[in-house]
C-alpha cells in the first residue's frame, strides 16, 4: 500500500480496448485538472485494438503528484474481468464501481444500475458522473469537460451525454460514499493537462521545428498526431515515410536545406535509423531524434514501458562522434528538453537525442502553462546574411569544431556535404592528414556539449544515508520514494539525470562520494546507467533497483525492493 495515501486518491478505470475507457479517463483527468488538483495518469494497454484488458489510472491530489501508485482507491470496472484482475490492489478504504449487471459480490463494490440511469451508449458518461460525484468534482466542471471534448466530435449528442452525466451524479450522491471526497481547491490555478509526447511536440514547435517525418510506432506515434494536427496552422510539414530509414534521411535532407527537423520512434524503428545517425554526424546536420523506449529485444512488449535503450542510443552509429542525450523526468522536462534539443542540435550541428518511454509518453499530468517567450526559436537561415569570404568552406576547421553553416540556395555560396571523409569545402578526400583533423574537429564539438550539459538534479539531505540515483521517467517515483524514506526517518537524497550524455563527473561526484549508500534505480535488467557512471568515473554502484516487467516504477515497488 502506498504512502501518501491520505493526500491522494488513485482511480483506476479498467476494461477492454475499444470500450472507451481512455475517453472517460481523459474526461475525468480534465475535470480534475480544472478543479485545481494535480494529477498523474498511467496508461496500461495491450497490443490490440479491441478486447483484452487495459487500465487508465488517474492519481489525484492537492499537492504535486509525481508518480503512479499501486494501491487503488477507486476501481472502476468497465468489464467484469477488471475486478478479479485488480481486487488485490484495492486499498483499505477502496471502493469498486461496477455495472450492477456484472453481479460482483464484494463488500467494497458499488453496483451501479447503469441500465436504469441511461441508454447503453452513454454508460461511459454516466460512469464519469458517478466517479466525479464520489471524488467531489463539481458537476458544472465535468459537464464542461464533456462539452469540450465530445462537442468537437459529436456535437449532436452532447446533450444526451450531459443527461447521462447528470444521472451518474445523481446516483452517486445517494451512495454517501464520501471517503474519497477530495478537499476542494479554492482558486484553481490554470493548469495544462498534457502528456509527455504532447509536451515534446509543443516544445519542438516553440523551438522552431518545421519538418517532422515519421513511421508509426508505439509509443512515439502521438507526437506525430499532435504535430499533424497543428501542421496547417503552423505551416509545418509532417510526412509519413516509407520506412524509418527514409524518416531520418528525409529529416536530414530537410535540415540540410534549412528546416529545423525532428523524428520520433521506438527502439526497433530507431535501429533502422542508426546508419543515418552516423550520416548526421558526418555531414554535421542538426536533427533531434526522440526514442520512446518500450520493452525489447525486437518487438518485445510494444505497448509497455522500459528504460532499456540507453547504451544502444549512446553508441548507435558506426564511427566516433559526439552527441547529446536528454532524458526528461517529467512532462515539464519533456517540453524544456525538447526545446533544448533543438538549440543543442543547431549549435553543434549534430544529432541530439531525447530518450523517453511509454510511461512518460502516455502519462497526462497537470502542469503550469509554459512561458513561450524566452530564447528565440532556431532559425538556421538567420545567419545567411553574414559576410562569408569565397570560397565558402562548409567544414572550415575552427577552434570549437563548429563551422559556419550556410544553406543551399540562399546565398551566392555553394554548400557541399559528404558522407565520405571530406575536405573543408565538403568534397570527398583520401588525404589522411585531413582525416585526422576532421575527426578532431568533430570530437571537439563534444567538448562544447560537455560544457553545456544539464547537471543532474540533486534533492534532499546532504551526506545522506541513501542516495537514489535515476534518470529519465523514473524521477517522480524516486522523488516520492525519498520523501517516504525521509518520513520514516531515513536521511535520503536523490540524483536525477535529465541529460545522460555527456556526463560531467564534476557535476555529481561529490554527491556520490558523500552518500553512505548509492542505489541506482533503472527500468532495465542490467543497470545501464550504473555501468555508464562507472565507465566515466570509476565509481561502482553495486546496489540497484531494477524493473523490466513492462510497468513503470512506483514508490511502492522501489520501497519493496529496498527492503530486500
Amino acid at each position, binding site marked *: 500500500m502506498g504512502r501518501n495515501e491520505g493526500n491522494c486518491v488513485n482511480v483506476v478505470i479498467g476494461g477492454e480496448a475499444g470500450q472507451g475507457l481512455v475517453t472517460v479517463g481523459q474526461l475525468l483527468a480534465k475535470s480534475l485538472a480544472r478543479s485545481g488538483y494535480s494529477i498523474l495518469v498511467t496508461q496500461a494497454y495491450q497490443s490490440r485494438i479491441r478486447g483484452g484488458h487495459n487500465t487508465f489510472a488517474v492519481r489525484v491530489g492537492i499537492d504535486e503528484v509525481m508518480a503512479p501508485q499501486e494501491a487503488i482507491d477507486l476501481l472502476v470496472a468497465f468489464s467484469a474481468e477488471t475486478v478479479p484482475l485488480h481486487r488485490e490492489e484495492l486499498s483499505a478504504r477502496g471502493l469498486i464501481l461496477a455495472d450492477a449487471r456484472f453481479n460482483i459480490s464484494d463488500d467494497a463494490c458499488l453496483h451501479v444500475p447503469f441500465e436504469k440511469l441511461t441508454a447503453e451508449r452513454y454508460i461511459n458518461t454516466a460512469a464519469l458522473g458517478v466517479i466525479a460525484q464520489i471524488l467531489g468534482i463539481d458537476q458544472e466542471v465535468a459537464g464542461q469537460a464533456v462539452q469540450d471534448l465530445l462537442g468537437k466530435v459529436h456535437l449532436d449528442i452532447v446533450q444526451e451525454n450531459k443527461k447521462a452525466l447528470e444521472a451518474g451524479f445523481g446516483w452517486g450522491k445517494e451512495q454517501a460514499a464520501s471517503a474519497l471526497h477530495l478537499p476542494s481547491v479554492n482558486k484553481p490555478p490554470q493548469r495544462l493537462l498534457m502528456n509527455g509526447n504532447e509536451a515534446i511536440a509543443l516544445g519542438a514547435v516553440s523551438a522552431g521545428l518545421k519538418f517532422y517525418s515519421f513511421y508509426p510506432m508505439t509509443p512515439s506515434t502521438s507526437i506525430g498526431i499532435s504535430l499533424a494536427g497543428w501542421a496547417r496552422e503552423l505551416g509545418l510539414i509532417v510526412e509519413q515515410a516509407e520506412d524509418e*530509414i527514409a524518416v531520418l534521411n528525409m529529416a536530414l535532407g530537410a535540415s540540410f536545406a534549412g528546416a529545423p*527537423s525532428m523524428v520520433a520512434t521506438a527502439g526497433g524503428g530507431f535501429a533502422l535509423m542508426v546508419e543515418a545517425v552516423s550520416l548526421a554526424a558526418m555531414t554535421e546536420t542538426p536533427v533531434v531524434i526522440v526514442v520512446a523506449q518500450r520493452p525489447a529485444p525486437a518487438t518485445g512488449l510494444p505497448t509497455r514501458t522500459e528504460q532499456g535503450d540507453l547504451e544502444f542510443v549512446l553508441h548507435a552509429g558506426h564511427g566516433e562522434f559526439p552527441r547529446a542525450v536528454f532524458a526528461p523526468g517529467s512532462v515539464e522536462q519533456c517540453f524544456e528538453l525538447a526545446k533544448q534539443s533543438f538549440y543543442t542540435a543547431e549549435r553543434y550541428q549534430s544529432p541530439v537525442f531525447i530518450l523517453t518511454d511509454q510511461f512518460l509518453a502516455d502519462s497526462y499530468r497537470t502542469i503550469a502553462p509554459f512561458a513561450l517567450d524566452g530564447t528565440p526559436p532556431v532559425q538556421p537561415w538567420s545567419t545567411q546574411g553574414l559576410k562569408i569570404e569565397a570560397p565558402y568552406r562548409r567544414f572550415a576547421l575552427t577552434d570549437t569544431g563548429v563551422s559556419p553553416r550556410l544553406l543551399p540556395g540562399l546565398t551566392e555560396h555553394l554548400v557541399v556535404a559528404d558522407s565520405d571523409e571530406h575536405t573543408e569545402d565538403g568534397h570527398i578526400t583520401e588525404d589522411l592528414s585531413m582525416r585526422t583533423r576532421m575527426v578532431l574537429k568533430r570530437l571537439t564539438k563534444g567538448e562544447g556539449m560537455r560544457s553545456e550539459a544539464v547537471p543532474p538534479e540533486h534533492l534532499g539531505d546532504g551526506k545522506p544515508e541513501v542516495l537514489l540515483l535515476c534518470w529519465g521517467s523514473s524521477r517522480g517515483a524516486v522523488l516520492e520514494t525519498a520523501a517516504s524514506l525521509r518520513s520514516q526517518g531515513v536521511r535520503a537524497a536523490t540524483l536525477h539525470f535529465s541529460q545522460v550524455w555527456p556526463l560531467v563527473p564534476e557535476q555529481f561526484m561529490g554527491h556520490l562520494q558523500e552518500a553512505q549508500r548509492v542505489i541506482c534505480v533503472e527500468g532495465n535488467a542490467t543497470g545501464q546507467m550504473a555501468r555508464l557512471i562507472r565507465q566515466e568515473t570509476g565509481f561502482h554502484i553495486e546496489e540497484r533497483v531494477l524493473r523490466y516487467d513492462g510497468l513503470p516504477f512506483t514508490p511502492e515497488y522501489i520501497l519493496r525492493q529496498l527492503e530486500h
Partner: protein
Amino acid sequence: MASVKDYGQYETAWCPGCGNFGILLAVKRALAARGIEPRQILFVSGIGQAAKAPHYLNANLFNGLHGRSLPVATGAKLANPGLTVIVESGDGCTYGEGGNHFLAAIRRNIDITMLVHDNQVYGLTKGQASPTSGEGFVTKTQPEGSTSAPFNPIGVAVAMRAGFVARGFAGMTDLLSDLIQQAVIHPGFALIDVLHPCVSFNRVNTWEWYQERCEPLPKTYDPTDWNAAMAIAQQWEERIPVGVIYRNARPPFTERMGRGPLVGQGVDRDKIKRIMGGFL
C-alpha cells in the same frame, strides 16, 4: 545565365573510357542550356561510382549514404521547393539498396529529377551483380551467374504511372542532355535510367552492346499513351528504345501538399499560445 564552364571541370576518380563521363557532360550541358545557376541546384547522391558525379561539377551537393539519396532529396525539396533538386546515383544504389525509396518517390511524385547511372553492375565494389544485371551474369560473387530476374526500372515506373519516365544512353549525349532538360522542368518525379558501360567490370553490356541496340524513339511516339509506354518498356534484348517513354500531368507532391517553403518561415508564438490553450 550559366554556361557549361560555370559548372567547372574537375579531375575524376573514374576509369578512362567509363560511361560516367558522358553522363557528366550531358548534365552540365543540360543545366547550362536551361540557364540554371549552380547555386539554385541541389544535387543529392548516394554511394558508388555514379554517386561521385556531382563532386565533379559546381553546385550544392549532399552526398549521402548508399541507397538513401531519394529520401534526403525529398526532405530538401520539401524544406526549400525553390531548389532544383537532382539525384544522381547508380543502379545498385537506386534499385538495390534504395528500392523502397524508389517506389515511394514515384508514389509521392516528388518534384525531383532522378538520374540513374545504370551500368548493370556494382562498380565501386568491384563488379558484383546489380539489380539490373542480366540473368546469368557471371562475377566473382556470382560464379554460377546471377540467378535473379533483372529489374526493369522503366517497366515498374510506367506501371506505377510515374510522372516522367525516360531512358538515356551515355553514348548519346545530345539526346541525354535533352532528356535531362525535360526532366528538370517536369513538375513531379522524373526518372531517367541512363545506360552506360562499366569498362572495368561489365564485359557483357559494353559500348558496342549498347550502341547496337539503343535507338531513339520515333518522333511520332506519344509518351502520354500508357499502354504504348508499357509495351515499349518491355523491349530490351534486341532493341532498346531511348527517349521519353511515359509522362503524365499528375500534380507534384509539393503542390498537392499545399505548403510554401519551410526555410525562412518564422515561428508565430501567438499561434503556439493558442494551441497551448487547447490543453487547459
